[in-house]
């Protein structure tokens, strides 16, 4: 029933953990980060969770078309926090935290969820699949694993241009079976590019548990076959994630090439708004992981260190909920993108045949927008 590797993993010497699930810490490992910054992390993590709950509700009400929940994986805000703002992030689709940390406005995400005319993607994407040039947060596709080699290519470009940039790519445990995990890992090390490859091992690829995805003892072992250094971290521990990525980014920036990080975490919710996880996993299993909740753990730590009071923490939660509700209200009122956005951005300039198709459609729709 309980097939997770996490228990053995925690005992393995390579496993990095700083905040223990009960909120206490391994003191000497705590990264040197200002209190203000820690509160920023916390606020971002909570925003992700609140957004997630809201989006699931909106989806069930038929107000948005889809949602990919990230609940349980919020500690990956720490991965974004370990980079410079100029570094590039190639997300999969559970990296709302990294996007928000980077400064992608929550308003933009909400507009995107509604696919309205203020959505930078012009309503072309499934809610959850967003990106932003300003934040160097690249637009993901849906096919699994393809972005890994993109991050590696971008890192090559950064190395070629000698601009000191590092790229980081997120992907799941399922993605380790994909073609471009293989090409990405291999090219990354062959060309020793400044790239951090971080696998959020959330134990499942939809219904398939990681133990049936691969027989590697630990996902981190996959690095060996590419001659790449690997780190395994507790992915529900924002400090551990932060410090692993810091180490990897430092290595990359020094010119010492890529690092593979296996971040052991758990998807507490459904795979997506179309999924029913009770078909393939037990309540007990989920509860075990709820006890390792990254937000709870971090909150306990912050309060225990008097970085935050109980009250402040509640105020943060309430503010985020209010703000989000307001943004939803506003986004829902924005009109949808005009008809021609179905035809723009296929090419830099619209070729004759697309113009003709657009005109023809307009004629039939009777001048419809």
């Amino acid at each position, binding site marked *: 029933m309980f097939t997770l590797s996490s228990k053995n993993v925690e005992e393995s010497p390579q496993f990095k953990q700083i905040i223990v699930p009960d909120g206490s810490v391994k003191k000497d490992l705590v990264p040197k980060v200002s209190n203000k910054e820690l509160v920023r992390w916390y606020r971002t993590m909570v925003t992700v969770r609140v957004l997630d709950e809201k989006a699931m509700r909106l989806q069930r009400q038929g107000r948005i078309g889809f949602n990919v929940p990230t609940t349980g994986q919020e500690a990956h805000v720490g991965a974004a926090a370990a980079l410079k703002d100029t570094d590039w992030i190639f997300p999969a689709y559970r990296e709302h935290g990294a996007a928000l940390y980077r400064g992608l406005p929550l308003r933009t995400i909400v507009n995107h969820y509604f696919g309205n005319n203020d959505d930078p993607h012009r309503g072309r994407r499934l809610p959850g699949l967003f990106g932003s040039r300003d934040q160097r947060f690249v637009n993901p596709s*849906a096919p699994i694993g393809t972005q890994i080699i993109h991050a590696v290519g971008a890192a090559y470009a950064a190395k070629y241009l000698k601009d000191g940039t590092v790229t980081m790519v997120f992907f799941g445990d399922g993605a380790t079976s994909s073609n471009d995990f293989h090409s990405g890992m291999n090219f990354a090390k062959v060309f020793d590019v400044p790239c951090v490859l971080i696998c959020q091992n959330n134990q499942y690829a*939809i219904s*398939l548990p990681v133990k*049936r995805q*691969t027989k590697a003892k630990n996902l981190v072992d996959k690095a060996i076959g590419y001659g790449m250094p690997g780190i395994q971290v507790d992915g529900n521990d924002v400090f551990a994630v932060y410090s692993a990525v810091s180490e990897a980014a430092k290595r990359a920036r020094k010119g010492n090439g890529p690092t593979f990080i296996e971040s052991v975490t758990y998807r507490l919710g459904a795979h997506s708004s179309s*999924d029913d996880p009770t078909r393939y996993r037990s309540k007990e299993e989920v509860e075990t992981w709820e006890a390792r909740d990254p937000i709870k753990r971090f909150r306990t730590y912050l309060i225990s260190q008097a970085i935050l009071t109980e009250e402040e923490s509640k105020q943060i939660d309430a503010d985020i909920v209010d703000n989000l509700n307001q943004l939803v209200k506003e986004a829902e009122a924005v009109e949808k*993108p005009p008809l021609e*956005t179905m035809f723009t951005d*296929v090419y830099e300039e619209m070729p004759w045949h697309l113009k003709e198709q657009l005109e023809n459609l307009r004629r039939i729709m009777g001048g419809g927008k």
Partner: protein
Amino acid sequence: MPELTLVESIRQTLSQEMEQDPKIVLLGEDIGTNGGVFRVTEGLIDKFGPERVIDTPLSESGIIGFATGMALYGLHPIPEIQFVDFIWPGWDQIMSELSKYRYRSGGQYPAHLVIRTPYGGGVGGALYHSQSPEAYFAHTPGLKVVIPSGPKDAKGLLTSSIRDSDPVIFMEPKRIYRAFREEVPEGEFTVPLGVASVAREGDDVTILSYGSMLHKALETADKVRDEQHISCEVIDLRTLLPLDITTIEKSVKKTGRVMSVTEDTKTAGFGAELSALIAERLIEYLEAPILRVTGFDTPFPFVHEPDYLPSVNRIQDSVLQIYNYSYGGASK
């Protein structure tokens, strides 16, 4: 006869064929424990066990190549690709291997298998859960390409596909997975591959279509009959490769006016092949341009999906254009 949805009909067919042919195994992502993301294979793992209903790792190249190896050895595997949009990591296995094994081995190693995969729009899936790439498959010699338009045909066509020794891409219009029920014969039932059906007889205009678009074509046929008294003959191609040219020719010779309705992108789409065949074989029967109603030449959109897919309005517009067409006397 019981009334089944498309999903139920496919599930029943798989189950019945598996009962009588132990060489059949199913494989794919989430098809076992989870019953498939569209629940097509629901319950089959309980009935046939995990050795015949195999949950695979996340690799389409792996799934198709693994199935090909099984087929070479003599099994009759039926891989499922979760969405046809995700078939491309396995495209090399289809294009370079599966479609050419028989030929390159001088007939020594045929690959008897069926790839099942949901395709098409209408479910709010955007770029990567909506595409209709049948033309890529139809342009690949060695493959057969089959698309049912409803539960009954699905049973007959899938049974024939499973028993056919050539590799078949069986594309399931997911938009109509549960859209309606149809009487489906309970026992063994086959529909031959390579044979179209006349879904609606008519005299004025021939509409060629398949899959979920067939229903839009039929709807339009009703509408133009009621509104303009135009009689459309609607043909359900059912197999795109090899195509049933006889049924097409017969109809076009009768109507002299023909168009196609397909969901894929227009340029070099499957409608182009239909137009080309007619333009090379039947030009003297034609009394109007051959029109294509298709998806547009863009990635598949999200918010504008209803505008993207061929609609009754768009189909009607083309029917009227060719129905009202008369040669303007233009000449060289």
